């Protein structure tokens, strides 16, 4: 059994840790590229959202490398993600690639399938290996996010351009080959220090921008055309509001214990959005409100074209922007890979933010943002 799975940013590091601990053959598809996108777009429905298309591309590239099993998450709606696995299976079947699918779904969804697929998977390596694999995967996930967060902090302040990205990439590769919890923690500490060493002490305080929106497009640099890196080079400190660690904690651990509540989000979004609309829709609105109160200079809202939950947020954010006097830029991403237009919009947005900072446009609410 050779398992492949779609990419989502650096998530593959954690999946690799778990599955190799369970002694599965793993085929990591090449990082999402234009070829992935071309393949995915060619075989997916026309107006479906970008993550599915890239996922199909990842699967096809994984199959080319010899994979015979696909690993995917399921879901129970209302977002389309819940049906991704089923549709991707259909697409691959019609292409004559009959690969087995392991879908990590809610046990209530299809218990027979859950029993026949997941339980052998757990039994294969034994409970001890599973526990170790999960611990490693979790630790790596935490380390990846910490490293990325540090890189976001360092980039606008670095003395030598692009140094932080180099150090980060090296650190992530080292992380892949570290296989003890203690080792991971030590490596993470060391590499964060390395990153911080790159800071130019004389650098001026950068602008602060929060990134809200759909989780895949935030985490996958290919999908968002390296948004976070671009902003860093433009001298902006990025705060990524979506965190996979937090999401897993809330939706897998706390909610299965019945302890998770989105009350904080609902209170923040009060007056704009009354309840969850699936995905990260409520989160986008609530975090925008919260960040406006924390003195952030601007918000970038990123979503794939036709994303259902985020488009509700997109309708609402212009009003949040005016009420809280915080510029919001909504970026819709699709198969389009032209970087120049994207870069120009970001540059214009950053210019607007820095002028506001100097007091030029402060009171002109009509021209607070455009999207």
């Amino acid at each position, binding site marked *: 059994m050779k398992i492949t799975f779609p990419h989502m940013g650096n998530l593959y590091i954690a999946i690799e840790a778990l599955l190799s601990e369970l002694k599965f053959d793993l085929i990591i598809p090449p990082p999402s590229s234009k070829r992935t996108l071309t393949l995915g777009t060619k075989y997916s*429905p*026309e*107006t*479906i*959202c970008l993550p599915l298309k890239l996922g199909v591309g990842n699967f096809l590239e994984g199959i080319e490398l010899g994979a015979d099993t696909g690993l995917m998450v*399921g879901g*129970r*709606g*209302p*977002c*389309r993600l*819940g*049906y991704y*696995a*089923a*549709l991707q*299976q*259909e697409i691959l079947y*019609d292409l004559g690639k009959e690969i087995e699918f392991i*879908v990590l779904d809610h046990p209530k*969804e*299809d218990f027979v399938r859950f029993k026949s697929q997941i339980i052998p998977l757990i039994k294969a390596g034994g409970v001890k290996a599973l526990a170790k694999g999960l611990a490693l995967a979790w630790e790596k996930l935490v380390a990846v996010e910490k490293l990325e967060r540090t890189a976001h902090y360092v980039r606008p302040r670095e003395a030598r351009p692009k140094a932080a990205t180099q150090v980060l990439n090296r650190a992530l590769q080292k992380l892949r080959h570290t296989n003890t919890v203690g080792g991971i923690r030590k490596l993470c500490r060391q590499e964060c220090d390395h990153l911080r060493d790159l800071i130019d002490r004389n650098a001026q305080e950068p602008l602060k921008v929060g990134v809200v929106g759909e989780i895949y497009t935030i985490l996958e640099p290919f999908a968002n055309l390296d948004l976070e890196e671009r902003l860093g080079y433009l001298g902006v400190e990025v705060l990524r509001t979506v965190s996979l660690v937090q999401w897993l904690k809330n939706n897998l651990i706390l909610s299965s214990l019945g302890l998770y509540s989105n009350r904080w989000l609902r209170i923040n979004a009060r007056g*704009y*959005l*009354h*309840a*969850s*609309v*699936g*995905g990260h*829709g409520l989160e986008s609105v609530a975090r925008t409100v919260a960040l406006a109160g924390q003195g952030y200079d601007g918000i970038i809202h990123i979503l794939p*074209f*036709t*994303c*259902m*939950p985020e*488009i*509700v947020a*997109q*309708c*609402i954010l*212009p*009003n949040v922007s005016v009420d809280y006097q915080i510029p919001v830029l*909504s970026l*819709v991403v699709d198969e389009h890979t032209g970087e120049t237009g994207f870069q120009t919009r970001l540059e214009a947005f950053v210019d607007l933010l820095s002028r506001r900072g100097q007091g030029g446009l402060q009171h002109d609410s009509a021209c607070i943002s455009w999207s």
Partner: protein
Amino acid sequence: MGLQVVISDQTNKAILDYGVKAAVDGICLPVKVYLGHVHNLVSKGVDFLFIPYIVSVEKAEYICPKFMGLPDIIRNCLDDLPPLLSPTIDGRRGTSKVMWSYIKLGSRFAPLHKAFEAYRQATAQQCRYEQQLVNNSLDNRAQCSPNSLVIAVLGHEYLLHDEFISMGIIKRLQQAGCEIMTAEQIDPGTIAGHSCFLKKRMFWTSGKRILGSAHYFAAKADGIVSLMSFACGTDSMTTDLVDRYCHRNQIPHLVISLDEHTGQTGVLTRIEAFLDLLKRGKQHENHLSPYGKPVHSN
């Protein structure tokens, strides 16, 4: 309950244009049209607007995220609205919850027993109407000319039965001498049974209806026409699944994607071509052209 009900006009160009202007670019056509209708009602001078949060109408199923936040979308896209009446219709844990949210709404305007009675009458009326639709279906109709083509038309009800956005597709097919079948002519139990062919349970009620009825119609209809609206999230998946199903089972399938484009000629040509294909298929003993290739090529 003694309240006067004002209904918006039939969709027209002005309504659509207003909606398109008020909405964000990437949202689906039905929401754009809805915004136009809301504006139409506001201009008629109403005191309250009834726009519910519709989370779910069947157990463990959803409608679509946009319906879950519809009043919030409306409130943020349009200015100067009268107060909204927005009960939360959430049947995820059983449909009895739905009843209570309606009655709670009703009790704002009338005593509780009156609201209860109004709810009872309204649901009875709705049931009667739905039963009537089932009774009128092709299966239950006695006379049906044997030569006419039977076409199943699939799509959200708000597309199918809106003559303006669907470009009168049902009427046009009927004028061309076709017998029409739609999902509301099948009772819900049958649809649920027929949606079992899916590998994974469909968690959108409308998606389940479309896929279940496609499976049901596959054996009965000469061809299937799917109406989808551009940028509709559920349609992007369900239409593709229907297409794959039809392709595998050699059922002629026509997908018509609707957006704010109002030129009708392109749609008409496609329908005519599709009907021609079906007629020829019948003449040639159901020998239909294989997918992507003409019949008469060597």
